[in-house]
């Protein structure tokens, strides 16, 4: 399978004046932002800045109160467009069935013919070192194994873009390393990465560019070097130093 030759074209992703309001609280305001066709974007900001919300809006899990989320083609809220993306959540939600069956289920939802599902699922499990656990119930795996399974599930789906919402915040260092290696591997397949994290070191290791949110506003979107070396805003500088800002 040559993934680089697969028909692409969902990207770039364009956010135009995206605002999200929930119960009269303005949680994201007036975000205009473009995610280019390649690279790894890391979304940073303190708790409650709107990082998870921004990714859910991009992924089409939520609908903006006003403004637009535009893919290069297709309707942002359609299942069709969502099937060309994948998302790994902070806490993976796995079904009460085996690790292998979890991936097969996802492939079924993506319309992969039954005869190909097991092969593709096993490939993905192998890529993430989970073959020995294939027939184990997903819910009894350790936290790190569950997150790797969630990554393997995303891998099997061959998305054009992968969202990761603080995927390592509940993991031990070895599992964190596995997730970061996985991100590099996804990147190697030409998959666009958008990830949020609290971990400054991780952001430095992964980011090509950084989106910095504060209080539901976009404060900076620049290359990682520029962000970490010479942040434009005082808040970003303070955030990088580790000061509490909110």
């Amino acid at each position, binding site marked *: 399978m040559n993934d680089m030759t697969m028909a692409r074209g969902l990207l770039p992703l364009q956010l135009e004046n995206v605002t999200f309001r929930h119960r009269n609280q303005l949680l994201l305001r007036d975000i205009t932002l473009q995610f280019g066709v390649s690279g790894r974007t890391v979304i940073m900001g303190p708790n409650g800045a709107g990082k998870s919300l921004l990714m859910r809006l991009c992924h089409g899990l939520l609908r903006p109160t006003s403004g637009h989320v535009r893919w290069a083609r297709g309707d942002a809220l359609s*299942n069709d467009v969502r*099937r060309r993306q994948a998302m790994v959540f902070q806490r993976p939600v796995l079904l009460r069935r085996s690790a292998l069956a979890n991936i097969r289920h996802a492939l079924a939802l993506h319309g992969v013919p039954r005869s190909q599902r097991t092969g593709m699922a096993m490939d993905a499990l192998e890529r993430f070192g989970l073959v020995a656990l294939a027939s184990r119930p997903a819910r009894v795996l350790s936290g790190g194994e569950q997150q790797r399974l969630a990554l393997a599930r995303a891998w099997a789906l061959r998305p054009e873009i992968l969202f990761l919402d603080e995927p390592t915040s509940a993991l031990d260092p070895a599992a964190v390393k596995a997730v970061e290696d996985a991100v590099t591997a996804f990147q190697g397949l030409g998959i666009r990465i958008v990830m949020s994290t609290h971990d400054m070191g991780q952001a430095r290791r992964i980011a090509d560019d950084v989106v910095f949110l504060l209080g539901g506003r976009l404060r900076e979107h620049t290359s990682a070097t520029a962000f970490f070396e010479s942040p434009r805003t005082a808040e970003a500088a303070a955030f990088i130093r580790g000061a509490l800002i909110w």
Partner: protein
Amino acid sequence: MAAGNPFAIALELILERDPVLMGIVSLSLQVSLSAVLIALVLALPFGAALAMFRFPGRGLLVTLLNALMGLPPVVAGLMVYLMLSRAGPLGSWGLLFTPTAMVIAQTLLVFPIIASLSRQVVEDLWEEYREQLQSLGCSRLRAIPTLLWDARFSLVTGVLAGFGRASAEVGAVLIVGGNIDGVTRVMTTAIALETSKGNLPLALGLGIVLLLLVALVNAAAYLLGESARRRLG
């Protein structure tokens, strides 16, 4: 059958394998298990759909369903009786006083229990799974079989409650079945009959056999569910 200790009578009934008793036990099981099976097939998708879709009158339907869990068996029996009696709309089917009529009446009693529980369980699971399933491009309709399958252990409880209700009730089967010896006589109607005849030890003996049966079915389901729950987390 000898008068005396009901436990001795129950033991004797079981050991003797009296053909009349065996017929009654087997009809009881057939009627109640059929009713549970039919109710299950109808109630699972109904309950799940009620959990997944929002439409006008939904709240009313949920309330009604919950209220129907307490539907008195005699009332269910009366409703089925009116439908199936000669003068009723389905009178030409000739089902009154047959085991089929009893199955219909018991299905009516079991359906609200399983539907209500599956609505609750599926609604809770959807809350937990929604983002992940939507992320995978799963529509609400397509999510129903996935959610029901993941709810299977919780649903066993509902099925057991339904079976308990069906096998314990006497009012509905008495009205639509008529307690005809060898045709529509089941455990509960036999107990009612023996009690009214004054043969209390036999009635009690039959009661013990019925209790044992229900306990057996519950134990089997419990063990099955627990071992699966432990394995699958």
